[in-house]
């Protein structure tokens, strides 16, 4: 068909895994802009909230994409967000400065990632199960420790405790009235992840590790270290997302992020990342996260009964993921026929 006559750049665009994610995101945007545009969806605050929700997901989804390309999963990132909020909140209300509390939080999260990584790589248990177990351990541990020390699973006044901290404006508030600072972190980290994956030698190691483990080992790539590092980065992403969430709401909550792992993984899949490793794009994941932000926010500006929200989300996900697979299979088949 037409693909045979297209120029190389044209074919390449069709092969981009993020293509359908961009299309899905645009479609969702148009739907909600029409349905809820007059009610505030298109206002500065409406757009700001879309970005805020997208950033919470996207900051974890960027390193998760790399982890998935390396052929692994992490279901514990959601509970790690809650744990990070408690660690960070506890530190700052006890007088720690922002940067020291942030470093502590990232170190704790990195340790969780390290445990996930070592358990997944050194045992033959799939990371799906390892991180399902750590998901419960981290969630339960964070809630119990918080409750034991603080008499509750939330810590109030987190941002207030940092009043006057010179770094606070880097982690809280807006850059302009429609663009929150969290969204800047999200985009910068995503571009960084995309650069590492596509532009560095290490990025090629990540892809080969997830796509053909045996040959990566034969080629001398340190497969175990690559995977463990990706687990650490995913957990650290959860840590930063938790810190930003706690500062945004002035409250640390151990229950925050409790279903984030699904949104993060689905954002990556919508963006064109393979579930089984070897292929993925952090830029596609940006659109996957934006897709979630648009649906979450857009829904509240429509007249639909909010009870329908989860059902609608499920339907939209199925459509997005199916069109993703169909587009890829179609293009690959055409390319093969060309030869």
């Amino acid at each position, binding site marked *: 068909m037409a693909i045979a006559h297209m120029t190389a750049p044209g074919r*390449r665009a069709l092969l981009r895994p993020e293509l359908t994610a961009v299309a899905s995101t645009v479609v969702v945007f148009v739907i909600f802009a029409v349905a809820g545009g007059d009610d505030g969806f298109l206002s500065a605050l409406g757009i700001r909230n879309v970005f805020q929700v997208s950033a919470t997901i996207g900051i974890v989804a960027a390193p998760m994409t790399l982890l998935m390309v390396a052929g692994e999963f992490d279901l514990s990132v959601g509970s790690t967000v809650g744990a990070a909020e408690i660690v960070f909140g506890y530190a700052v209300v006890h007088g720690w400065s922002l940067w020291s509390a942030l470093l502590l939080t990232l170190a704790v999260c990195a340790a969780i990632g390290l445990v996930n990584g070592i358990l997944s790589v050194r045992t033959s248990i799939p990371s799906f199960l390892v991180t399902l177990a750590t998901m419960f351990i981290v969630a339960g541990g964070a809630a119990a420790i918080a409750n034991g020390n603080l008499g509750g699973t939330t810590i109030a006044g987190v941002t207030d405790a940092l009043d006057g901290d010179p770094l606070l404006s880097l982690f809280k508030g807006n850059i302009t009235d429609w663009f929150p600072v969290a969204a800047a972190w999200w985009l910068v980290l995503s571009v960084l992840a995309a650069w590492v994956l596509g532009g560095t*030698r290490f990025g090629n190691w990540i892809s*080969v590790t997830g796509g053909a483990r045996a040959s990566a080992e*034969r*080629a*001398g790539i340190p497969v175990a270290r690559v995977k463990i590092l990706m687990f650490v980065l995913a957990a650290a992403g959860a840590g930063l997302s938790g810190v930003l969430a706690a500062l945004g709401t002035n409250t640390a909550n151990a229950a925050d992020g409790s279903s984030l792992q699904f949104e993060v993984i689905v954002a990556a899949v919508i963006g064109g990342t393979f579930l089984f490793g070897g292929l993925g794009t952090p830029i596609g994941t940006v659109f996957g996260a934006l897709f979630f932000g648009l649906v979450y926010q857009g829904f509240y500006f429509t007249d639909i009964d909010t009870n329908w929200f989860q059902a609608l989300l499920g339907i939209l996900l199925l459509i997005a993921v199916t069109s993703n697979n169909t587009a890829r299979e179609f293009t*690959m088949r055409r*390319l093969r026929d060309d*030869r």
Partner: protein
Amino acid sequence: MTDDQAVVFEARGVSKAYGTVRALTSVDLAVRAGQITCLLGDNGAGKSSLIKVLSGVTAPDGGTLAVDGEPVRFADPRDALDRGIATVFQDLAMVPALPVYRNFFMGHEPVRGRGPLARFDKRKARAITEEQLASIGIRLTDPERPISTLSGGERQSVAVARAVYFGARVLLLDEPTSALGVRQAETVLRYAVRAKRQGVGVVLITHNAHHAWAVGDRFVVLKRGAVAIDAAASDITLDELVRHMAGGEEVTQMRRDLREIL
């Protein structure tokens, strides 16, 4: 054919058992530079056990391997590779969704800059890949094209080209033509001959006597884990080779049995 080329890689009296099953019994095999040595045998004759030993996947129970006459012990395939013994496994070790050049250079990426975040010099990688593939008659219209869009024969050829480019002195080809049609098998065999002309010692593992006959300089037939035939191309005919591979008297007996049933 000439037997005067240097023996670069050698198995001497190699034995291997899995539990009580003797997979290999005192097997000798000499790989000469610039020759194609065909390793033939029926299923279960010990071909895969021998390739695992030669490529460093498993260690032999008895006997030795020698590179340039010097005894060696491979810890793993990477170790063998460092000695110039490269294996193209049947699974080809490719990532289907990645472009050809990313597969070609896996683990050997050319870089600009230093450290773990050294930039992957993609321009150089693409140029070398295109050049190497052009030399075996594969023209890539788009360098970003995933390797899964190449045909089976082309992917095999890419795997061989990669091994030779990265300095293989001995190339172990594990059943490279088994899943291919005639035309594609020809592509792969042609490239094995090209590698041989560049001075590489090639071991072609196959159960197809016709493919072996077309390109082989020397034929080694394994039977029940031991060497049954080891002959230069000039000392044997295709008929003899086929008969030995198929098991000679056993086939005659099988024909007789089948005739009685039918």
